[in-house]
């Protein structure tokens, strides 16, 4: 029976030595005279009773005494063998007899040892689906199939496993766990399967099962030893590792290709022949094969069995970059793996039309999105913004703090001072620093920005040399030393660690740079750059003292005495004496600021503006407040607008707005507090009065509380309830307490206690009415 399997047709020989040489055939004659050719669909039976569909890639004879007839087949899945996952993802409904490419990179193409047995063609299996699943699906499919499908059972038998990943780039450290399987140079296992063409299940010689759904007559045992190319299908864990490893490989490859730092791979022959006559072609043609350097590919096969597999180690994969696996990559990976196998087993490939890989590798992979490449952008609007049309709306838009007018009123002197300072230094090529201080909302930053704009127009007019502006803000840094990073980034576009950036900047500013422009560095919120060693402040003020630095520093901070208060002598001495203070705005100035913004609009009564300006000037002199009050007043005016009225903002509106912003909510809060909360506060006050101390314990207040309750005819609540009342009050910060000692503490607010007293009596009066 065995003799009935014989080769048909011509063969090509490959391999020099006699032992290693292979003869490739195109046809195999089966015992029942059927001739199987490469590209035919065959059913391979399994001893377990499962049979599998495969397409013959090629036949060959390895020239050995035993089991010399071999075939290399590509597995296909039937619909019933698909895991549920794959089915779900299928783009269209599968035909019952449709076959699916088993697109697992490693083990989908296997070598089958025909030995003395058979391979049979089975043309009835139906049409083979092409490209029904995209590549990713097929891959996923496999990993699911690995767990569920009975294919694993093969491995219990006699399969020859060996690793074929020689020469693939590989990381050294991180993959250690996942490489467990491959680390052994060659592992061999064998699986014995009977390959039936026509064997009914009843007739099983030598205890091996075979069956054929189509041809029941022939009763032959066929043994196939299939040689799996990878070692990972025998355990689930390894399987997952494999997937992981693949993913990493992909990344690596991508990296290689992207960077092009590595030499391109030597061989990667795309077996077009195989695809030409198999249904794979459609799928395969979609793929973009990428491959990795394969040193010594020609002698690969021989080296495979002797040497440990990995040759090249790529180190340093960026962890961050591995998040997004592109789908294309899965595809390319799988196909390139196939190719490798191909080239392993058929290095000569006399019959196959070869395609140069170069043309294919050109296909660029999808560019990965990394943090660096990402453009910071908010999603765009669906409808464009409206522009305000009504006078009150226009007024509101102009009063917004962000709407800085072209010239800053009431800061002309300061503006000229700063402007002439910077301009003079730029023209004279003298480098130095200027310290600008002033309470918030006095226009420091706005003035400096206006100054820069003015300077830029002068540069365009050619009056002063061109310069570069760098702006950093202490509040926008996570940490003072990040200032160096930011400056360096603005200056040269480089990215560096803070320490490195500091040294680079030091070098930059101390060496002469005849060609580059001078730099104007604006440091906002300077006080936040303070560190214990003050190295950041020191460096910033030290650079301008260098003759070649070309640096002018304008430092902005809140406090006037910052140099004396927090800076060390050597820092404040470098800062120098050129300082400038922005005084808080007076009410006239505030009035002017608002009026300038409202020029040409009849939205405000002039008394209204004056009221707002006076209120703010008395409190803080913060221009932002004045603008905010006016803006709020426009809203109020809009809402309370009655027919027939002028529709401008009047005194009452501003008054309302001021009250809303500055009134203390405590009065309302106490008035709206619950009965027990009010009693508790009253108890608190009477306790403070009695003891004359600022601190008391909860127990004391409790006593007072209970007696107050009795006085007012309430049944006193339980201690837990009173405690919860106390906690509730504390959450609104009426009283603060130290839980540890159960101690209520009055926080330096005898004023608020007095206020509360007034309130409570007022409240009582209210309730009596």
């Amino acid at each position: 029976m065995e003799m009935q399997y014989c080769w048909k047709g011509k063969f090509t020989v490959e391999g020099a030595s006699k032992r290693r040489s292979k003869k490739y055939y195109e046809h195999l004659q089966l015992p029942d005279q059927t001739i199987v050719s490469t590209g035919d669909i065959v059913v391979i039976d399994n001893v377990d009773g499962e049979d599998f569909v495969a397409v013959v890639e090629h036949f060959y004879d390895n020239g050995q005494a035993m089991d010399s007839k071999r075939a290399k087949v590509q597995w296909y899945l039937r619909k019933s063998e698909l895991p549920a996952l794959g089915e779900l993802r299928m783009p269209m409904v599968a035909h019952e007899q449709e076959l699916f490419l088993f697109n697992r990179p490693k083990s989908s193409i296997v070598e089958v040892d025909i030995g003395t047995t058979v391979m049979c063609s089975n043309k009835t299996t139906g049409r083979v689906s092409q490209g029904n699943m995209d590549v990713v699906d097929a891959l996923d499919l496999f990993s699911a199939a690995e767990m569920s499908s009975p294919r694993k059972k093969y491995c219990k038998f006699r399969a020859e496993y060996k690793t074929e990943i020689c020469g693939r780039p590989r990381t050294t450290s991180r993959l250690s766990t996942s490489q467990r399987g491959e680390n052994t140079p060659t592992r061999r296992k064998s699986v014995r399967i009977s390959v039936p063409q026509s064997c009914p299940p009843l007739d099983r010689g030598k205890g091996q099962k075979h069956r054929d759904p189509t041809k029941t007559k022939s009763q032959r045992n066929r043994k196939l030893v299939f040689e799996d190319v990878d070692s990972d299908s025998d355990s689930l864990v390894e399987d997952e590792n494999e997937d992981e490893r693949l993913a990493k490989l992909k990344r690596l490859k991508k990296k290689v290709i992207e960077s092009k730092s590595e030499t391109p791979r030597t061989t990667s022959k795309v077996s077009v022949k195989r695809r030409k006559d198999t249904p794979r072609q459609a799928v395969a043609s979609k793929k973009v094969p990428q491959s990795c350097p394969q040193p010594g590919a020609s002698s690969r096969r021989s080296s495979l069995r002797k040497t440990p597999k990995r040759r090249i180690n790529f180190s340093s994969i960026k962890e961050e970059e591995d998040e997004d696996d592109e789908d294309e990559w899965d595809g390319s990976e799988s196909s390139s793996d196939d190719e490798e196998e191909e080239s392993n087993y058929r290095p000569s490939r006399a019959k196959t039309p070869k395609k140069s890989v170069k043309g294919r590798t050109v296909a660029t992979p999808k560019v990965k999105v990394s943090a660096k490449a990402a453009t910071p952008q908010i999603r765009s609007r669906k409808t464009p913004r409206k522009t305000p049309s009504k006078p009150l709306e226009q007024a509101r838009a102009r009063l917004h703090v962000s709407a800085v007018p072209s010239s800053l009123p009431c800061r002309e002197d300061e503006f000229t001072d700063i402007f002439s300072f910077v301009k003079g230094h730029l023209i004279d090529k003298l480098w130095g620093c200027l310290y600008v201080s002033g309470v918030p909302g006095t226009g420091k930053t706005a003035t400096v920005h206006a100054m820069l704009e003015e300077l830029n127009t002068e540069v365009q007019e050619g009056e002063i040399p061109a310069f570069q502006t760098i702006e950093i803000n202490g509040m926008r840094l996570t940490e003072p030393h990040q200032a160096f990073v930011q400056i360096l980034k603005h200056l040269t576009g480089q990215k560096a660690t803070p320490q490195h950036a500091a040294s680079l900047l030091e070098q930059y500013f101390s060496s002469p740079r005849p060609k580059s422009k001078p730099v104007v560095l604006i440091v906002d919120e300077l006080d936040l750059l303070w560190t214990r060693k003050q190295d950041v402040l020191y460096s910033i003020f030290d650079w301008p003292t260098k003759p070649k630095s070309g640096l002018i520093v304008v430092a902005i901070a809140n406090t006037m005495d910052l140099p004396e208060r927090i800076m060390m002598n050597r820092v404040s001495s470098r800062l120098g004496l050129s300082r400038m203070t922005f005084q808080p705005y007076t009410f006239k100035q505030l009035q002017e600021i608002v009026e300038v913004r409202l020029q040409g609009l009849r939205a405000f009564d002039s008394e209204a503006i004056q009221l707002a300006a006076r209120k703010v000037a008395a409190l803080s002199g913060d221009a932002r407040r004045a603008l905010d009050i006016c803006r709020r007043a426009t809203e109020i005016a809009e809402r309370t607008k009655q027919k027939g009225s002028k529709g401008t903002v009047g005194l009452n509106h501003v008054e309302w707005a001021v009250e809303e912003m500055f009134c203390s909510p405590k009065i309302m809060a106490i008035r709206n507090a619950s009965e027990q909360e009010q009693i508790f506060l009253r108890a608190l006050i009477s306790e403070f009065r009695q003891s004359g101390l600022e601190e008391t314990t909860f127990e004391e207040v409790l006593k007072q509380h209970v007696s107050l309750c009795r006085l007012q005819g309430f049944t006193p609540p339980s201690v837990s309830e009173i405690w919860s009342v106390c906690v509730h009050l504390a959450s609104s910060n009426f009283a603060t307490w130290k839980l540890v000692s159960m101690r209520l503490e009055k926080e330096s607010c005898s004023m608020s206690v007095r206020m509360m007293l007034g309130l409570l009596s007022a409240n009582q009066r209210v309730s009596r009415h």
Partner: protein
Amino acid sequence: MMLLKRHRRFAARSCPENAEYRTIFKPRMVKKKEYGLKEADDEVWEKVQDLLRARICQNSLPENMDGTFQSQREHLTDLIRRCATIGESNSALVIGPSGAGKTMLMSSILSELAKDSKISGNILQVHLNGLLQTDDRLAVQEITRQLRLENTVKDRVFGSMAEKLSFLLEALKKDEGKSQSILFVLEEFDLFAHHKNQTLLYNLFDISQSEQTPVTVIGLTCRLDVVELLEKRVKSGFSHRQIHLFHSLSFEQACKVCEDALTLPLNYLSKKFCTEWNSHVKEFLQERIVETSLRHLYDLDKSIRSVYSILLIPICRLGPSHPRLDSADVLDALKMSSCDSKSAMLQGLTILQLCLIIAMKHLAELYEGSNINFEMVYNEYQKFVQKKSNSIQCFGKPVCLKAFEQLIVLELVRPVEGSGFTGAKLTPKEYRSLKLLVTPLQVVETLNSFSCPSELKM
């Protein structure tokens, strides 16, 4: 004033008279569609319970909240609307005691605005909570994630903190009038003020005050003095819009809210069932016990949540065998909620331990708050026992010490800080200074309410 606006939380529903329906109802209906309170089966009660519980636990927004916080609602809606349409940046704080309805107001406004496609298509929402984003690193990460900026892949944000922050600021800086407006809702705003340097707040307010991507920053907090927590430059950036919410429901209104919460919509199940139920609810809330219980809770805490809390147990006990809300259940619930934890613990003590507590109470009254130690307590205890020599068993010192240690474990007595309990110099157990954490009031209350030997009750 606007704050005094009345809160008509729920519009009154006019219920048709029961009697009508009762006459319509035919007891032998084949379809069995109509059933009363007594005929209802398990399934019906389950449905009713589900509905009521969802309302009581405030899982969803109240169905009808017309007129609630009308002026505040208008103010906030206006801000968000303008931010979305005109691109005006703003910042505001919503301040009110816990349970006043800040979050409810916010979410109801947002759900209302979401219906307007002009607004919902032009605004992105970022919700942060001070309890979750405990520092700026987490907050920046969360903002980036919620805005789905390009350095986010599958919920992971790339880069170091400095990179993330500068990336975010860079993203928000670009503005050619094309980017969507962003609404930041910061719950527990006061906790954000405790972040280092208040970097996040500074930057948010800074963006809101400069010509960048339009943002609206709304903080919700229950601290009245939250503005004082802000650093001066942060404070300067804040627009000082403070929107106050207070509990302003009167007791009658609160009762009305309860009634509305318990009332079933007429088309809910069977009509007869609902009408019967609704009239029952009315009667139930007018019961004296229920009213006083509600009053008690209302006096403690005006928030509707606290008033709701005692309705849960009566609702959970509903069933075919118990088809009515019971005032006894309300009393049970009230007892549970107003139970004093320390007194409850005292009830589980042994006689000896109680005697020790009483001795300590005497001492506390004697020395007015100064610390005590075991020797003093034991001494006092002996005196107390001798006074009632024939009725109470006198225990030895070691037994008393053991019992006393039990009290320390229960934290009814607490060692005073730095009194030799820890550290190098350990004072002997008997002389460590301690503090009684039970008030005399609680002791008396326990002794009176709990069946202990009459000898203990002085």
